[in-house]
C-alpha cells in the first residue's frame, strides 16, 4: 500500500546578495561562486512571475546578456540551455559557465564590453519556505481533487523544486504515481516539459491525464 500523498507548498522570498556584474567576466566570476539558491532564482522566477503569460525563456542570464549587454548570439545560446535536462543545480550552473567561457574564447573583445551601473546584473537568492497544505490523497481521484485546490506554488514545489533543487530524481507526482503502480501515468507526467507550459496549463494537462486514467479504470 502506497503512502498517502500530502500536497506541500513552497513560497519564495527574495534576498539580494549585494553582488552585481556590469561585464561578462564579472558575471562569470560570480556565477562560479554564488550559492545554488541564486542559480535557482535566476533560472526559475520567471515561471512564476509571468505564469499567466506564455512562458518566457526561464533565465535572467540570457535576458541580461542579450537585452542589456547586447550580445544576441550568446543570449540565444543561454536561452536554449534546456533546464529540464539537468539533474542538479550544480550541473546547470556548469553549463552556464561553459557556455559563457566558450563564447568569450571565440570573441575575446567581449570581455571589455560593460554596461552602466544602473543596468548591472544583480545576483538574487531565493529563500524557499516549504509547508504542508491540508490536502492529502490516497488514490488518484483524491489526488485530482487536491490538485484543483492547491495554488500553482504547490505545483511548482512538487515539479521544479523537488526535482532540481532537492534532487528527488523526478517530480514528486510521478514518484507517487509509480508507488501506486501507475507506471504509465508516472512516465507521461515525467515527460511533460514544465518549462514550456504555464503552471496553469500544466495543472490542466495533469488533470486531463488523471481523468483519462480514471476513465480507463472505470472510476469517474
Amino acid at each position, binding site marked *: 500500500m502506497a503512502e498517502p500523498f500530502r500536497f506541500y507548498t513552497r513560497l519564495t522570498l527574495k534576498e*539580494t546578495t549585494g553582488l552585481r556584474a556590469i561585464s561578462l567576466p564579472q558575471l562569470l566570476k560570480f556565477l562560479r561562486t554564488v550559492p545554488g539558491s541564486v542559480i535557482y532564482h535566476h533560472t526559475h522566477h520567471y515561471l512564476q512571475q509571468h505564469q499567466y*503569460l506564455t512562458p518566457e525563456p526561464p533565465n535572467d542570464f540570457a535576458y541580461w546578456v542579450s537585452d542589456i549587454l547586447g550580445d544576441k548570439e550568446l543570449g540565444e545560446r543561454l536561452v536554449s540551455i534546456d533546464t529540464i535536462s539537468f539533474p542538479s543545480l550544480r550541473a546547470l550552473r556548469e553549463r552556464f559557465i561553459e557556455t559563457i567561457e566558450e563564447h568569450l574564447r571565440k570573441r575575446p573583445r567581449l570581455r571589455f564590453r560593460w554596461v552602466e551601473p544602473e543596468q548591472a546584473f544583480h545576483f538574487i537568492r531565493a529563500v524557499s519556505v*516549504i509547508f504542508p497544505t491540508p490536502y492529502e490523497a490516497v488514490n488518484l481521484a483524491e489526488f485530482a481533487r487536491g490538485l484543483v485546490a492547491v495554488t500553482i506554488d504547490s505545483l511548482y514545489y512538487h515539479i521544479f523544486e523537488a526535482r532540481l533543487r532537492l534532487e528527488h530524481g523526478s517530480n514528486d507526482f510521478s514518484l507517487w504515481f509509480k508507488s501506486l503502480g501507475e507506471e504509465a501515468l508516472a512516465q507521461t507526467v515525467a515527460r511533460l516539459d514544465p518549462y514550456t507550459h504555464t503552471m496553469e496549463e500544466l495543472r490542466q494537462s495533469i488533470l486531463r491525464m488523471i481523468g483519462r486514467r480514471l476513465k480507463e479504470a472505470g472510476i469517474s
Partner: protein
Amino acid sequence: MQATLESYEPIVGRQAIDELRFLAQRLQGRSVLHVNSTAVGGGVAEILNRLVPLMNELGIAARWEVIRGGDAFFQVTKKFHNALHGQPASLSLQDYRAYLETNTQNLKTLSLDADVLFIHDPQPAALIKARPQKGRWWVWRCHIDVSSPHAGVWGFLKKMIELYDATIFSAPQFAQRLATRQFLVAPSIDPLSEKNRELSEETIQPIMRKLNVPLDLPLVTQISRFDRLKDPMGVIEAFRLVRKATPCRLLLAGGSASDDPEGAQVLQEVRDRAQGDDDILILELPPNSPTEINAIQRASTVIVQKSIREGFGLTVSEALWKGKPVVASAVGGIPLQIAHKYSGLLCRSVEGAAFAVKQCLNNPAFAKRLGENGREQVRQNFLLTRHLKEYLLLMAALEHPEDVILL
C-alpha cells in the same frame, strides 16, 4: 470600513487566501510591531493601515506605533531623506543630536514588546538602541532608494542599520552592500482601497463632469504632483507631438501646490506653457481625493508617468490595475512593473513617449492587450496580499537562516 481577508478572494482567488492562512498557522504565537513616523498620509501609512488588521485576522498579534517628534526632528529627517536620495546636504552635529534625542525620548514612551519589530525608514532607525532588552528580531524596512546616498548621512545611519538582524529594500538597485541580510519586498497597492476599487460608469461620469473634464476626445493623463522630476513640461511636449496627427486631450492632474513654493512655481510654468491650448487641462486636486483619482484613471484612454527620477513609482501599478495602457519612463522601479510592449510601454525621451502614446491611441486592440496584461502583472506581483505573504515569509526566514526552510 476595513476589508477582511475574505473580501480579497474574488480578486486573488480562493487558493491564494487559503495559502496565506496555512502559512500563518505555522507562525502562530508570534507578535509583530511596526514603527514608522506618520499615522496618516504617505504610502507607508496607507499600507500599514491595511496590513496590520489583516495580520491580526491571520492570528499574528500585530501592532503599529508612530514615533513622535518636534519640528526640529522632522526637519532633520527631511534632510536625511533628501541626502539619502543623493542630494547635497549640510547637517550639523546639532542635527544628528536632535535626531538621536528624539529617538531616545520615544524609547521611553513606546511599547516595543514584540517578537519581530519592523522599523520603517530612517526616522525611527535609532530605536535599535533598545536592543537586546526589547524585541527578538529587528528588521529595518527601507522604502527609499539609497543606491547613491550622501556619504556622511549614510555613514551615520549604516552603523545603526548593521545592528539590525535584517533589512528590506523594495528593489535590488535601491540597496547598498551591508553586513546584514537584505530581503527584497516590493511595495503594493490595495485593490479595495478607495483609490483602486472598481467604479461603475454611473460613478465615473458625474465625477468627470464635476471636474470639468470632457470625454469627447481620447484622454491622455498624467497624475502626479507638480514637480520637475515628474516632467510635466515633457508630457506637454509629447502631447503636442501626438496631437499633430491624432486628436486627443491632455489632463495633468496633481495635488494642490498651495503649501509648496516650488510646486506652485512648477504649476505656474505648466500653466504658462499650456496657455491658449484648450486641449490641455490642468487640475489641482484637493489633498485627499482618492475617488477622483480612481475615476480619472478609469476615464483615461492612456496613462502617462514620464518621470525623470522615481522611487518605486507605485502610481504605475495603480494605473495598470485599472487595465489601462501605461506609457512610463524606464526609471526607478518602473521597469519592474512594466515589461515593455507586454504590460505597458517604456520610454526614455519626449519623442519616445509621444510615439508610445500614438501607438496606444491608433491601435486600440494593442492598447487593450497591454492594459489586460498590465492588470494581470499587478494581480500577480503588486497587490497587498502578496505583500502580506512576504512579511510572513520574512518572519520564517528570520528564525531559519538556511535557503530551504521546512516549516
